[in-house]
């Protein structure tokens, strides 16, 4: 019986005008987007390799350790799945002077965007009249008079509606895959296909969620005209409002101090205040030495040359002066350590609060299926939050290796030329460790997306139960 209802539902939908329009839109928009994204990926790939070549050429000609750090900063190459999903990879570059204004004004279109906006809208459009529309047509009575259980009708409608929408989506995805795989510059690996399969799974759940939501609202209304109003109202709130408001709401409930303010405070602690403290501590510690060694009398007022001359002449002075220098240094070291500890407390506090705020923002946004799917798709394709911290991790590890290399290399240079300033002479760094970005394995990514996937599933299930209860109480007359 269930399969008959599903079959009837699919048959009905496929012959409908809305299916024709939606299918056409999806089959045009998705491959067109993928075509543009694939070309853009190739462009980014070229840009990335050009930049790498520039850096290598630079290293050959100008490498010297003092300024090397600015040149060889790790950078993220484009990943093959960027032919489908863009995530956080948009190059707005707010921290460089020439930031790109275009993605700020209009965010980039990608598969995630199409699924979260067009698909949810289509899900609603296909289901808003599934119950009340049949009541208006008078067919609901007839169906129930045949002794078909309500649960089966409901399930059949939802499965049928979801399946119908999946047909054009799968066709569009297949066309897109052709476009991607036919491009000789794009090399997808096994994990990329795995990620795509998981995204498709997420899409099915996402679509089912909106089909269930539309059915629930339909089962709460007598007329399809009011059902569509409520459906669109809920859609706007879930898709266009909750995700965008969530970071702002999080900053309201879990405020974090502004980075600029904290940086200014840290600067004050480790510069101005450190100088005052350092002067005082150095004075206190040197005073002890001065008291003990009368030979040092008047040393604070002596010029550097006089001190040098006196050290050469007077051995007792030299010994005492060394102690004096050590006491002075100890004072400054203590001041540095104390102020750095204070600054670190501030920095840690800022990081802790920012983390808490981000966590709350994520938590709040999970209430929106759009955000759930966005996190799922971006994390699976290595263009999301997970990849950002993965990249930071890789960079840190590379930084440590490079630090060791630099120490060893400078040691060698010092040995070869003891008088040279090894920071500022040309260095041969052809064998230095290069930063290599590797994608996080699919299994690890999958673990990361379990939470948004679970939220989507639970929401779908909860809405289904609500739809079922509403439908049980529905008056079919």
């Amino acid at each position: 019986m269930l399969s008959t209802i599903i079959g009837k539902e699919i048959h009905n939908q496929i012959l409908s005008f809305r299916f024709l329009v939606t299918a056409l839109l999806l089959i045009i928009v998705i491959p067109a987007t993928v075509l543009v994204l694939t070309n853009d990926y190739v462009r980014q790939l070229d840009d990335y390799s050009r930049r790498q070549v520039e850096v290598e050429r630079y290293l050959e000609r100008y490498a010297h350790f003092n300024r090397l750090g600015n040149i060889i900063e790790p950078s993220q190459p484009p990943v093959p799945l960027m032919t489908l999903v863009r995530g956080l990879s948009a190059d707005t570059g707010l921290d460089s002077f020439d930031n790109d204004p275009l993605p700020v004004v209009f965010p980039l279109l990608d598969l995630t965007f199409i699924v979260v906006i067009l698909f949810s809208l289509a899900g609603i459009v296909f289901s808003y009249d599934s119950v009340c529309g049949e009541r208006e047509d008078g067919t609901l009575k007839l169906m129930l008079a045949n002794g078909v259980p309500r649960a089966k009708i409901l399930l059949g409608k939802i499965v049928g509606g979801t399946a119908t929408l999946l047909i054009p989506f799968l066709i569009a995805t297949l066309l897109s895959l052709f476009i991607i795989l036919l491009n000789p510059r794009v090399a997808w690996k096994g994990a990329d296909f795995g990620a795509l399969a998981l995204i498709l799974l997420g899409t099915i759940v996402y679509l089912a969620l909106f089909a269930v939501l539309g059915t629930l609202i339909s089962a709460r209304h007598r007329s399809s005209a009011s059902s569509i109003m409520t459906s669109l109202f809920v859609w706007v709130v879930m898709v266009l409002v909750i995700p965008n408001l969530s970071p702002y709401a999080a900053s309201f409930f879990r405020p974090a101090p502004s980075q600029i303010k904290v940086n200014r405070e840290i600067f004050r602690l480790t510069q101005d205040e450190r100088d005052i403290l350092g002067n005082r501590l150095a004075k206190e510690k040197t005073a002890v030495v001065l008291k003990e060694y009368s030979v040092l009398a008047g040393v604070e007022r002596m010029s550097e040359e006089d001190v040098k001359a006196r050290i050469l002449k007077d051995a007792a002075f030299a010994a005492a002066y060394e102690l004096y220098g050590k006491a002075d240094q100890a004072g400054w070291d203590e001041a540095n350590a104390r102020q750095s500890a204070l600054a670190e407390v501030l920095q840690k506090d800022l990081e802790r609060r920012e983390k808490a705020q981000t966590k709350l923002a994520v938590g709040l946004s999970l209430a929106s299926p759009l955000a759930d799917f966005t996190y799922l798709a971006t994390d699976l394709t290595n263009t999301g939050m997970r990849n950002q911290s993965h990249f930071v991790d890789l960079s840190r590890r590379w930084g440590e290796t490079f630090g060791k290399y630099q120490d060893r290399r400078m040691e060698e240079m010092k040995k070869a030329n003891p008088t040279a300033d090894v920071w500022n002479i040309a260095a041969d760094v052809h064998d230095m460790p290069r930063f290599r970005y590797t994608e996080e394995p699919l299994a690890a990514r999958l673990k990361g997306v379990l939470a948004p996937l679970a939220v989507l599933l639970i929401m779908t299930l909860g809405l289904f139960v609500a739809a079922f209860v509403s439908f049980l109480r529905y008056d079919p007359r």
Partner: protein
Amino acid sequence: MIGTIAKKEIVNNLLSYKFFIVILLASVLIFTSLFVMARDYKARLADYQINKPAAGEAIAVLPPNPLSILAKGLDESMARSIGIGVTGFDVQSGQKSGNVIYAFFPAPDFVYIVKLVMSLVALLFGFDQISREKEDGTLKLALSNSVSRSALLAGKWLGNFFSLAVPFTIVTCLGIALVGLDPAIRLSAGHLGRMAWLVALSLVYIALFLSLGFLVSALTQRSASSLVVLLLLWAGLVFVLPNLGTLAARQIVKVPSTKALSEKRQQIWTSEILKTYTKEGKWREGTWNDRILAINRESNRLEEDYRRQADRLVRLSKTINRISPAAGFVYAATDIAGTGIGEDSRLKEDIIRHKNRIVDDIIGNKRPFPAFTYRYRSLGRVLAEGSLIDIAWLLAAALIVFGVGAAALRRYDVR
């Protein structure tokens, strides 16, 4: 007669479930958006107070623009603190960097609400105007009286436009008045004037989508099909076209990435600085000024190249995107608010000129450095430099769509 029809429409709307839902949604969203964006503005203002350069410091920083509460646009980028040194710019971006979720979703400002939600609402007011009356059988009745089809359409359009525009304007003005009551937010007469332009622009945009709703309603026999067409058309016009247009423009105009540019800058100044050292790593006296000039010359040349390409890209993507009224609306709104692409690129040019002055001062050993000042373009100039075209295009589109709708109604089978 038009007046009577309009009055009937307004009364109809006031009593409908649709009106209740729509006005509730619009009011809640506009108020929330204004509150949230005002808070964001105040946080950035507090940052500015900390960042404000002391007299003689070589830092270019603008206070955040109060109009960014309505149209955030590029204000985040324009209000960055940009330190100027011999080796280039030292940029400190705002407080957003800590919470990555901001980067996922666009800011929910007034322009965002109008662009997405109000356009949808306008379509919902228009989608069933002809087809539903036909389904109900009232279209026959109305037209059997001596009322012309164009008068019927005009009356219906006016009635629906007013039932939408009046509450929208009232809610927006109330929201702005509440924001204005906050002592931390100082709004000048100029700001209020620009806000009035923004509201007027929004009304034109809403009128366009209402006309579109009427047109599709007059082309379809059933209101259900009219709705499906309109929703998908809306998604295409508002989401797909403008977002795809930028990407498509990038295929045509090749611009290096901002990363490539900033890496190149680093390479230029480090290689030039290296020239001030001898082979043994000793400092070469007397060559510093030449190096500074060389760094400045090279990075200005780089910048000019990049700007030329980037300007072409912006122009092309604007032209492509203008097919979508949503893009025209966003361009005009952000330009009027002073947070648009045009203002941002003018500001950058000014900062580069200021940097050149400071580099001259460093070489000439002149202190203190001059302060950086920037004057936003006047409203007249903004309008003359492109916004008027956007507004005219929106108006013309609204009129054309309405005209086609009237023609379609003439051929409509009312039975």
